């Protein structure tokens, strides 16, 4: 067996041994996150599933977490990378608190920090396999943004990751408006999550809704959506394609 001197990950692309140390594919993944700005801040929804390929293996994963006093982070993609990001942010928030000087990291700062981290990892061909949603309120200003695993980063009034991009955002584009009340916001998110539940194979019917306002973060208890499977179109699913194969 040839002995390769392990070189630093600068050569990650070429060196086979270094290969085993960089992320090539995700293993345990979370599906979509949907988030919107509303009157008092940001509302974010996610289900609690962790898929292992096509197996819906874990059903109690919290994919939304509070960061510091002013931010809420939601993640889809590799769960272990999300946990790693939480550790980075933990350290960041800890150091920020240790200053104890009246200044604190707001959602914009956290979002930009994450963008730097994600982009730098992407440049080393060792990405954190997540799409992150960062929402928050500071000094009356509401912030909502997204960062992908390749470092693409932007802000918007409503964001969604993964399947949510295709199924939820069209609904949001039609029905979102500024100054939604809390109830209307939740209804809108539930509408999106229901569509995702019907159509996304890796979604499970156990979701949480988190809200962040100037006062802080609250993550709801898990609950499930009512579903209706008696639509006529569902009755005879093979109607248009009968055959033995």
């Amino acid at each position, binding site marked *: 067996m040839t002995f390769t001197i392990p070189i630093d990950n600068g050569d990650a692309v070429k060196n086979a041994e270094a290969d085993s140390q960089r992320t090539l594919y995700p293993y345990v993944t979370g599906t979509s996150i949907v988030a919107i700005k509303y009157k008092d801040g940001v509302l974010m929804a996610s289900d609690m599933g962790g898929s292992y390929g096509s197996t819906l293996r874990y059903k109690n994963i919290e994919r939304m977490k509070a960061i510091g006093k002013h931010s809420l982070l939601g993640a889809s993609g590799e769960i272990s990378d999300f946990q790693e990001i939480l550790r980075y942010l933990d350290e960041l928030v800890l150091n920020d608190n240790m*200053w104890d*000087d*009246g*200044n*604190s*990291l*707001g959602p*914009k*700062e956290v979002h*930009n*920090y994450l963008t*730097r981290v994600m982009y730098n990892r992407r440049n080393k061909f060792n990405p954190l396999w997540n799409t992150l949603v960062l929402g928050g309120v500071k000094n009356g200003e509401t912030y909502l943004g997204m960062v992908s695993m390749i470092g693409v980063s932007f802000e918007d009034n409503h964001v969604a990751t993964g399947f949510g991009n295709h199924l939820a955002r069209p609904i949001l584009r039609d029905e979102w408006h500024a100054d939604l009340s809390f109830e209307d916001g939740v209804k809108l998110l539930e509408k999106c999550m229901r569509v995702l539940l019907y159509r996304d194979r890796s979604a499970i019917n156990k979701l949480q809704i988190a809200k962040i306002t100037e006062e802080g973060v609250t993550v709801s208890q898990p609950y499930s959506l009512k579903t209706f499977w008696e639509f006529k179109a569902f009755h005879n699913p093979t109607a248009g394609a009968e055959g033995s194969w």
Partner: protein
Amino acid sequence: MFRNQYDTDVTTWSPTGRLFQVEYAMEAVKQGSAAIGLRSRTHVVLACVNKAQSELSSHQKKIFKVDDHIGVAIAGLTADGRVLSRYMRSESINHSFTYESPLPVGRLVVHLADKAQVCTQRSWKRPYGVGLLVGGLDESGAHLYYNCPSGNYFEYQAFAIGSRSQAAKTYLERRFESFEESSREDLIKDAILAVRETLQGETLKSSLCTVSVLGVGEPFHFLDQETIQKVIDTFEKVAEEEEGEAEAAAAPAEQGGGDSGDLDVAPMEM
């Protein structure tokens, strides 16, 4: 302060618990030309006296922009001051790049102070021979700090450092209680008046001082000579009127004559 057997090394304590090299570094600050800083709740003004080596040369730059929301005035070894300003700019811009947000000035001065402290505890280094008046903004408003070669830093409502700074400090001590609520214009006027105190008799001209302002909604910038001269005119004229009618006729002419660059107005003035 006299030479003694404990002052060769920065890492040698004296029996009375002093580090003489550090204290000598603080002496260097006192030799530099004066720098003054004052702040209100929303603004910080930094002003300094422009001293040139000779009539032929330009004066040294003593006030530096660190970022839109932070400025620094130095007194002492200006070369050390320049290097530290570069460090501050670097810290500030790195923070902005990572967080897209201005670095709170209170955190910057701690980094600066920690950097200075290192030089008081390494036998192969020497303390920085420069005092820095750092003015800037953070979430709680405007702040003014003084960073010392010893690695200490203090927050001030107003302060002056360098030669003949005591005169400015006396003036500031009389007036500082009003600074918190001061308007921007009054703050600038007080800064220039404090500079005048350090000149001790020399006529105050805009070419002799550099003034910079920063505040909430106002990025750091220098005031141009015209603006400074206008402020000077508001109190110089008043002073001259008070001096008596006999000189009233001569005074305006004198003022005009003094202005039209008979002295060291160098091309590199700010």
